[in-house]
């Protein structure tokens, strides 16, 4: 069974058809890229999958279950996590607390435990904090864990977004322009990071990105959107040669 299936998904905003008959099947362990011009509907795909708004038409199916009408937090608890194109960290919270907060659904104790500080509370708190710290270590953020998230440099904030997404223990990770605002060398590091994390956490990844270096390097196959419609699918090599994609998106010279 596929991990995720979008069946003829459309999303309209008033008269605007941001997404039309979008079809996508993600098998477990895949790493797929979603590209296309600005305003093509890429982020809309993520929003529909994560339940920010339901699709106008069609079905989103996660592990065989239709999730059209689930709330975002329920979908996340079912194993889908994402990052945001415009970073949305909990700015006034520390780096560590950003990660700890989203672990809440599996904290394993109830309100009463936290009020009276039962041993179970103490144990779980310790375990969760350790887990969070390990995750931050993994993302090169450990030494900044007591800083406020909002005061981190941009690149670190992007990494923290990924760390926070991972803390929800997702099966499917959605990355929205993770390399935006990074310079090529940082992008290189990011590529490695995504690879390793995917391995370690046994993830399926769908990512949106405009930096072709990253996309071509990382993705096994690509889906190209334009005006809400899929105009091409295929391996990076096929896409790079697709005249329609060149015309709509890449331009004359494909990124170096």
């Amino acid at each position: 069974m596929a991990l995720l299936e979008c069946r003829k998904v459309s999303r309209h905003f008033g008269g605007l058809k941001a997404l039309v008959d979008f079809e996508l099947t993600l098998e477990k362990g895949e790493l797929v890229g979603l590209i296309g011009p600005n305003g093509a509907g890429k982020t809309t795909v993520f929003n529909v999958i994560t339940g920010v708004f339901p699709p106008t038409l069609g079905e989103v199916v996660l592990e065989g279950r239709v999730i059209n009408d689930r709330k975002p937090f329920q979908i996340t608890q079912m194993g889908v996590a994402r990052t945001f194109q415009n970073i949305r960290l909990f700015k006034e919270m520390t780096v560590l607390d950003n990660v700890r907060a989203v672990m809440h659904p599996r904290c394993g104790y109830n309100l009463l435990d936290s009020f009276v500080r039962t041993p179970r509370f103490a144990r779980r708190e310790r375990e969760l904090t350790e887990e969070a710290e390990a995750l931050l270590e993994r993302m090169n953020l450990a030494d900044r864990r007591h800083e406020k998230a909002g005061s981190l440099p941009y690149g670190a904030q992007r990494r923290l977004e990924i760390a926070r997404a991972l803390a929800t223990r997702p099966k499917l990770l959605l990355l929205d322009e993770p390399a935006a605002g990074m310079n090529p060398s940082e992008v290189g590091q990011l590529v490695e990071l995504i690879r390793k994390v995917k391995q370690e956490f046994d993830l399926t990844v769908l990512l949106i990105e405009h930096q072709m270096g990253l996309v071509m390097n990382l993705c096994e196959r690509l889906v190209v959107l334009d005006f809400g419609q899929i105009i091409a699918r295929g391996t990076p090599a096929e896409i790079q040669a697709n005249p329609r994609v060149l015309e709509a998106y890449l331009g004359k010279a494909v990124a170096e």
Partner: protein
Amino acid sequence: MGQLLEQVVNGLQLGFVYALIAVGYTMVYGIIKLINFAHGDVIMVGAFVTFFGLVRGIPWPVAILVGMVTCALLGVVIERLAYRPLREKGAPRIAALITAIGVSLFIENFSSLRIAFGPDYRQFPAMIPRAQWNLFGVKVSSVQVLIIVSTLILVAILQLVVYRTKIGKAMRAVSMDMDAARLMGINVNQVIAFTFAIGSALAAAAGALLAAAYPQIWPYMGIMPGLKAFTAAVLGGIGSIPGALLGAVLMGQAEVLTAAYITTDFKDAVAFALLILVLLVRPAGLLGKAGPEKV
């Protein structure tokens, strides 16, 4: 039927006074997202200044004008001393709100001192001769006509200023993005001060009309009308001038019709229940645009 219509006119009188207060609120809110709780007290100052003018025999339009100018200055001074320092420090929005509460308390308490207006209730003299007409079987008084006409004129002028003038465009720009507005060469502080001036001048006019309709003034007179008018602005969709007008008229009708046909005891309860119900259906008010937040 005639009586119902007469009650509706009563409601319009109340609603239009609220409207004038509400647009002042909504302007300031629109531009710096501040619920300027001191606005109600500016109304009071406007009413008092007009009052002092009237008892000295100054013609009423002049007296109101003097009140408007005084309050415009007051608004600018409040902005300069209390809110701008916070803005320049990049303080959180709530700090400005608390400061506004402080300013409101200050104006009320200071005005109550003998060296200022004093704490007494004063009878507001009639500005225009009392007259009553029968329009299609509905009794309409000269004061009601004065209120409705002046509010309509002032709101129309305001709408023109905001949407048809350069400074209006600057105001809208500042309200959307202060830094970007600066980069257009807009003097943001000046635009905000201007907004306060206009809003406060309208408050003064509203104070004078409020006192004309309910002829008594005292230092705490602004609290309830201020609150109701702000609520009206929210009801209509805060930031929107037509919204403020609509909300205020509805609020006036809700109060008056409840008082007339249910009981006076519940008029505030009904008015606020209406607000809550409207917000549940339209979280950004009747004419406000909420739009699902883009992620």
